[in-house]
């Protein structure tokens, strides 16, 4: 028995060494995997390196994993000493085999903290683990921690170089200041590269496992922490995702990501378009950090920096105009994409769910375009030709911005003023000259879309989703409390209200007889979902 154990020990130590040598031999390994191979082949290492792929023969995994696992736990309990290099090697093998072993990632966090391990090495290890385990929650969690560390470092270096720069400028030492500027520039380049790499890791994992919640929520986190408010990055993401979602029409998480991008873009653009913007602060290193190289369009940061803009500032007016047009285009393109996909790929719940979200965002945004009270007199909603005939002209200002509590995306924190986009505005004509106004979605047009789908399609799933969407329009969108509850009594026919899904306290909702009726309706909706 003891002899066998010793043999296993020797074997396993060799394999751990082989793995780490493989990484030294080829720093470009980009994928790992287990090679099905029930028995050892005489005198050959179970570690196989072909091109950039690292394989482990399956027979050795059952020896290898318990060995490295126990070694690390003994170290953690201070029963067995391991030097730093051995720790790096052992955790590497361990995590490639079992990436959800949290404690092993924590050991590596400590190694990063004391400077033994370069953070990028860990991003690389995580990337490899994700090629075999694309969902692994602990791997994604560790990545976020590593990225946070890198961001802190960037900030720290950026801050100190800024201080130095100031000192040096005082000393009129231009050359050194320039060198420092160079350094800052390199840092922001580095950050942009890291961001790009991170997006790629997320894409790969998303391709390996459909509707990969961890990969997509990580991607959102990355943008929130590394590119907040960065219009260019969000635009680029939106356009690069277009093809991806078209090829993954069942991937609800991928579509959710698009919804997130759209929401963020609209928030930023709406802020930019608001005539009286109070300076928007952002935690993004691109926007407000000491690291220069901001990618925020000049005019946008200009609008932010100035805070209040005078009405005579035509450049700012143009900017506002442009922002609004962009928002309109974004919505229009998204609804068009959604219609195309629904028609080309019938029977996908994901696509119908996407339609709900986009239409909901659109509906909210339009509500916020409505002037508050009557102070804006002549100003009208954008594209009033397209405006919902059943909708009151004067919006309910008191409810604008309510969605801030609806989701944490802060997309409607500040209701947008409409002066800049009203048709009475002199610049509006300029916009209109750029092309015909985009047809926008309205409740009737959505009902028309559903009707068209129902008429032209016999796919039972497609019909079921179309009917559910219709019901959603009737109950969630059209039946929202607008000015009085009487509006809701006869609702459900479409085109009635102006509200989005309003999250009023459920207790109040439950006590309302109307909501009981609603429940029955939804019960029947669910029945339909089940039985049709």
């Amino acid at each position, binding site marked *: 028995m003891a002899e066998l154990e010793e043999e296993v020990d020797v074997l396993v130590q060799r394999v751990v060494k082989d793995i780490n040598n493989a990484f030294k031999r080829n720093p470009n390994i980009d994928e790992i995997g287990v090679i099905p191979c029930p028995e050892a082949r005489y005198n050959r290492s179970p570690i196989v390196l072909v091109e950039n792929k690292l394989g482990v023969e399956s027979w050795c*995994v059952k020896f290898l*994993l*318990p060995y490295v696992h*126990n070694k690390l*736990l003994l170290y*953690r*309990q201070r029963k067995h000493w391991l030097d730093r290099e051995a720790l790096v090697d052992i955790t590497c093998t361990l995590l490639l085999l*079992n990436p*959800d*072993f*949290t*404690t092993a990632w*924590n050991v590596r966090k400590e190694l990063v903290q004391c400077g033994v391990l370069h953070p990028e090495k860990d991003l690389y290890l995580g990337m490899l683990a994700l090629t075999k385990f694309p969902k692994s929650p*602990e791997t994604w969690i560790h990545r976020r*921690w590593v990225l*946070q560390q890198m961001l802190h470092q960037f900030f720290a270096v950026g801050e100190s170089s800024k201080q130095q720069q100031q000192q040096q400028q005082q000393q009129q030492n231009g050359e050194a200041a320039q060198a420092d500027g160079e350094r800052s520039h390199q840092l922001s380049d580095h950050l942009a590269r890291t961001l790009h790499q991170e997006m790629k890791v997320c894409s790969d994992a998303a391709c390996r496992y459909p*509707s990969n*919640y961890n990969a*997509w*929520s990580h991607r*959102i*986190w990355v943008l929130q922490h590394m590119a907040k408010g960065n219009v260019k990055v969000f635009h680029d993401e939106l356009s690069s995702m277009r093809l991806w979602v078209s090829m993954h029409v*069942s991937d*609800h998480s991928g579509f959710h990501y698009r919804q997130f991008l759209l*929401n963020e873009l609209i928030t930023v653009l709406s802020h930019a378009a608001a005539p009286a913007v109070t300076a928007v602060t952002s935690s993004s290193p691109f926007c407000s950090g000491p690291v220069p190289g901001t990618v925020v369009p000049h005019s946008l940061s200009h609008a932010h920096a100035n805070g209040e803009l005078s009405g005579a500032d035509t450049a700012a007016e143009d900017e506002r105009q442009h922002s609004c047009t962009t928002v309109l285009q974004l919505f229009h393109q998204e609804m068009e994409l959604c219609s195309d996909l629904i028609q080309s*790929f019938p*029977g*996908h*719940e*994901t696509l119908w*769910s996407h339609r709900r*979200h986009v239409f909901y965002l659109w509906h909210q945004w339009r509500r916020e375009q409505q002037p508050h009270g009557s102070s804006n007199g002549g100003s009208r909603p954008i594209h009033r030709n397209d405006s919902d005939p059943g909708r009151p002209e004067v919006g309910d200002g008191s409810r604008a911005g309510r*969605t801030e*509590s*609806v*989701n*944490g995306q*802060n997309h409607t924190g500040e209701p947008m003023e409409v002066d800049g986009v009203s048709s009475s505005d002199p610049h509006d004509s300029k916009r209109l000259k750029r092309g015909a106004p985009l047809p926008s979605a309205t409740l009737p047009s959505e009902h028309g879309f559903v009707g068209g789908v129902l008429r032209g399609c016999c*796919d039972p*799933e*497609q019909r079921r989703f179309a009917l*559910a969407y219709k019901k*959603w329009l009737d109950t*969630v969108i059209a039946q929202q409390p607008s000015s009085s509850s009487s509006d809701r009594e006869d609702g459900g026919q479409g085109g009635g209200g102006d509200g989005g*899904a*309003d*999250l*009023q*306290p*459920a*207790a109040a*909702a*439950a006590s309302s007889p109307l909501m009981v009726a609603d*429940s029955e309706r*939804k*019960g029947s*909706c*669910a029945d339909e*979902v*089940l039985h049709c």
Partner: protein
Amino acid sequence: MGTQVKDVIIKPDAPSLLILDKHADYIAAYGSKKDDYEYTLSEFLRMSGIYWGLTVMDLMDQLPRMNRDEIIDFIKACQHECGGMSASIGHDPHLLYTLSAVQILCLYDSVDAIDVDKVVEYVKGLQQEDGSFAGDKWGEIDTRFSFCAVATLSLLGKMDKMNVDKAVEFVLSCMNFDGGFGCRPGSESHAGQIYCCTGFLSLTGQLHQVNADLLGWWLCERQLSSGGLNGRPEKLPDVCYSWWVLASLKIIGRIDWIDKAKLRRFILACQDEETGGFADRPGDMVDPFHTLFGIAGLSLLGDEQIKPVNPVLCMPEDVLQRAGVQPDILS
């Protein structure tokens, strides 16, 4: 062109009767066969594994078959200096396993076996300025951890030790347009996260902040033709999601909105008649995790051979009564 159906088909010969004895034998034997490889592979979640096994045994009224003393000694050995509990000996402490440990001790009515004050300090120390909770000292934020924190503190009767208002504010900031919740602000709605967030709002007395009709709608749409529930659109049905969705519906008072008979049929079909235990889907390999959620789901559906389960904490109601914990449920 046919579209791919994302559901399972329940075969006519699939199990349709509840085989409780087999499940109890399966769980009782589970811990004893320790294959080195399998054991190490899942050791990082051992404490939760024990909670799943013991809870399902208790729901089947078979808890005395488990080795109480050994388990309590194990839990004691997993408490760290900081007060937090780890999944196993030598692993690092985490909120996930702290909750599991406290749940197990409640099943055994032995919370005092560990240093409760230290646990409270640990949980409290993980709350962030914005009200969210980190899972451990390394700072990962997730609404799951908000749930773990309030569940732990409410089982210990120490909810007053945390900033409840701030915690609620954070969880509400993760609510989406569909009435659901994600792991962080801006994240996609997910049945598991919704369970955590509705459970959290129940324990903090804030269920009125949920739009029960809207959320109920989304949850109902998780039911597929097979009767099983999925966790997000176009995912396969799964016994564990069936629990999370069903429990959330129960918490917000909308459990009657789904077809219960069909769901029961789906859950029963996930049993393995030979080995005992439940799998995620009919015909797959069984495990203790799905066995707990299969049994708990059947309990919520009203099966009288099983003890009533609490939808918020996934523990037997009698245990919670003894502990003096009664989470809110919307009617």
